[in-house]
């Protein structure tokens, strides 16, 4: 029989996620609630993942209607759906072989959708040109990231390839790097300054890699995950100069670009900043920028639609990238359609526009309010503090745990923040993600909580957190 030592060492090196443990408990608790076992709470609040629909945010009506009409084209001929929905469905189906969403598409995606994405990028970036040939749609942005990393990382090379990644960092990207045999070289985000990225820290990280691995790329998440910082233009320019000087490939994960809340924060894309810096940098810095239909107002995580734009890559390398993506066949068609709606939403004058505007504004004002409330409430509790959430889908509060709690956690063989989160789940019915999942700085404890939930759910969450945390601090004082 295949034994563990006969499996890929890269796969063995991947972390076992704490999620499995928490999910099992959560399942059990849900079952107990169903069986009417007495609990101090009537339902679970699940804010572990960045999943708006799971959190209770309503899907956008226009998106649902267009997808339904594409799946069941009889709806295109009926009067039940608004005219612009039907027109968009018709347009999208025309781009499908045999007029069916069941057909494979071209490797990079349906050509007209890829074109509309390139136009979207140009509009977003103040006119910076975007070549559709540089865009690849994939089943979610992480899939595209993994393909790009696969090209960058020679697993058999010595020294091994390294990728500079933020600390704390989104778990899945780190796992992908490990799976491919790359070394993650962490650079610390500065918590005291709102999780700011500082170029001095990039330099330190690069130096630390000497003799350990050969850094090939810098991975940046902006807006951040789990930490919700939004980079300033100045910082982004520094990053661009840094990758240029040090001959690193820039991987810019920008899936939260539509989630910006800070009054003084503004999302600007790496492509735009690079273009504005002009030649020679704008012609030479090699960049992969990722976006997705999973986040933002759309929140269509389950459809698996993401894309990567590749900038300034060697044309010979691009040919190999094409072949690599072609072996995956193509991204799910409904995910591609979601990207199309992201790139070209309803416009003023369209019949669906008023409802679309109302729904997206409601989501936006909910998120702005949630972010403010989390900041207020968490910072009012002793032993808890939180940086302002400028963007992204999460709050990432810091836990200052009493030594007694840390000792208890160690006795139970758990990371202290995992211990806290387990208690929070069992006693308050709130499922969050422990900070240990993000490879944080030694001796620091956090938890990550998705803020993309309806306002009443956020209030209930904060109420339960306050009551639980106060009790916890008392119990372990």
């Amino acid at each position, binding site marked *: 029989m295949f034994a563990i030592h006969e499996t890929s060492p890269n796969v063995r090196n991947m972390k076992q996620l704490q999620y499995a443990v928490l999910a099992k408990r959560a399942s059990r608790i849900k079952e107990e609630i169903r069986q009417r076992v007495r609990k101090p709470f009537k339902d679970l609040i699940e804010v572990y993942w960045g999943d708006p629909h799971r959190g209770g945010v309503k899907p956008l009506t226009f998106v649902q209607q267009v997808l339904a009409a594409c799946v069941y084209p009889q709806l295109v001929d009926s009067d039940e759906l608004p005219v612009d929905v039907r027109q968009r469905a018709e347009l999208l189906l025309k781009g499908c*072989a045999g007029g069916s969403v069941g057909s494979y598409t071209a490797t990079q995606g349906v050509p007209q959708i890829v074109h509309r994405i390139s136009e979207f990028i140009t509009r977003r970036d103040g006119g910076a040109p975007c070549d559709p040939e540089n865009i690849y749609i994939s089943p979610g942005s*992480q899939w595209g990231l993994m393909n790009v990393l696969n090209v960058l990382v020679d697993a058999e090379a010595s020294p091994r390839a390294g990728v500079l990644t933020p600390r704390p960092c989104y778990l899945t990207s780190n796992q992908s790097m490990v799976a491919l045999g790359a070394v993650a070289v962490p650079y610390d985000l500065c918590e005291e300054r709102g999780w700011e990225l500082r170029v001095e820290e990039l330099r330190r990280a690069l130096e630390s890699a000497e003799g350990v691995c050969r850094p*090939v790329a810098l991975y940046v998440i902006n807006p951040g995950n789990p930490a919700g910082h939004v980079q300033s233009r100045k910082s982004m320019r520094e990053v661009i100069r840094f990758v240029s000087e040090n001959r690193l490939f820039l991987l810019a994960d920008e899936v939260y670009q539509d989630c910006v809340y800070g009054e003084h924060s503004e999302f600007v894309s790496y492509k735009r900043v690079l273009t504005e810096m002009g030649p020679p940098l704008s012609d030479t810095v090699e960049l992969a920028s990722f976006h997705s239909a999973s986040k933002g107002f759309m929140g269509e995580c*389950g459809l*698996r639609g993401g894309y990567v734009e590749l900038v300034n890559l*060697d044309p010979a390398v691009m040919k190999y990238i094409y*072949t690599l993506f*072609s072996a995956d066949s193509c991204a799910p068609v409904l995910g591609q359609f979601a990207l199309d709606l992201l790139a070209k939403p309803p416009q003023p004058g369209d019949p669906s526009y008023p409802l679309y505007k109302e729904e997206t504004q409601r989501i936006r004002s909910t998120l702005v309010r949630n972010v403010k409330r989390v900041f207020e409430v968490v910072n009012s509790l002793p032993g808890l503090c939180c940086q302002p959430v400028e963007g992204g889908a999460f709050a990432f509060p810091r836990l200052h745990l009493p030594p007694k709690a840390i000792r208890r956690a160690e006795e139970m063989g758990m990371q202290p923040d995992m211990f806290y989160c387990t208690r929070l789940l069992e006693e308050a019915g709130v499922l969050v993600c422990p900070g240990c999942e993000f490879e944080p700085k030694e001796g620091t404890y956090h938890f990550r909580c998705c803020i993309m939930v309806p306002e009443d759910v956020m209030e209930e969450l904060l109420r339960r957190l306050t009551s639980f945390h106060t009790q916890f601090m008392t119990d372990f004082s």
Partner: protein
Amino acid sequence: MSQHAANGLASRAKVLTVDNMNPNVKRVEYAVRGAIVQRALQIEKELKEGVKKPFNEVIKANIGDAHAMGQKPITFLRQVLALCAYPELLQDDKFPEDAKQRAQRILEACGGHSIGAYSSSQGIECIRQDVARYIEKRDGGIPSNPDNIYLATGASDAIVTMLKMLVCGEGRDRTGVMISIPQYPLYSAALADLAAVQINYYLDEDKCWSLDTAELRRAVNAARQHCNPRVLCIINPGNPTGQVQSRECIEDVIRFAKEERLFLMADEVYQDNVYAEDCKFHSFKRVLFEMGPEYSTTVEMASFHSTSKCYMGECGFRGGYMEVINMDPEVKAQLTKMVSVRLCPPVPGQALLDLVVNPPQPDEPSYHQFMKERTAVLATLAEKAGLTEQIFNAVPGITCNPVQGAMYTFPRIALPQRAIDKATEEGLAPDMFYCMRLLEEEGICLVPGSGFGQREGTFHFRMTILPPTEKLKIVLQKIQDFHVRFAQEFS
């Protein structure tokens, strides 16, 4: 930055080059979407721009995409999926009750009652349970555990995930993976990407592409000199060859896998596509268990299925699953880690799979129409399979084995020596040269046999049997005429 430095920057080499990129990626090829298809797309563009050609459309018989060739989706499946996409339609009385019930059940299992929420990485639990029940029913009651079922982004995703996990070792200990020649080039692509050792075993063209354990033994013994053979991949019904393995053959393969300590990967995505009257689909799992505990408790296996083929043909949904049998729990834990990196398979594809394993029952309103549509699709494919074999075998220089199953024909073509020489001159595989000519002269896109692997000195092409019957007849006629011309030109 100084002008001097700026100039230096502008003229410098790229950071990511062909020389420093992952060398394994350079070895990846995927003929189904390769050079000939890119030329076909170019020609389509030219046609659109009004360039005159001897044909007014390109017929893409290169890819197993039924809907692209005009096959209609099954009504019931699309109704349920539309209800899942826009649940407001549950109020619409134009949708039948059984469709609504299934949609409601699926939505209840989704986070926030939305197909836009992530599911668990292994796939929605109640759907995995339904898949397990389907497998039990298919396999005469042999138990299937939902925990052993992994939903995936098409079967290809699951196949690649398994291979990523199983390939390890250095030098002579590097994992060897046995695959049929000819094979579906996803396997060779994945093995190249992983730098696994590909161990070829040849199917017997003279015996209807059947598999012979003597050949398996030859291949594995030769391979043991330079690698560690640990995996055996088999595609049944076959792609590109369409052969449906007999029960005896499947038993032989299982015995062989046990003797040689090989992990079996059984690609069964065409399990509903069986046309030959004397052939039957036997699932590897069923045969394994019917061979008794000596085998059923020891042979490790993964079997794969998909929503892209059979009667559904829903390639664009990227739905599929694998079932793992007798896997060491520690090894299974590795699998669980791997699937989490994909986050989750597309939820619409999971929903579609649920309907495939849970179709309308005889007492339900949609049953008759569903069965009518399903039967029509499979009957048409069977008809086209027979027609194709017949027509190709009537062409001197083309020999075609019966298309027992799947969606393709893989005829052998006799190429004159002068044509082979011309191809070599142009740096092309002879059957690529042939197919390119066919594309340019007739607008028919096929995939040359060299893309799938074949015995040295033989040439083939793979053509799908998916175009509508009348169009297929025209295509077959054109290929016939082309072949005669080609043979003449290079005689």
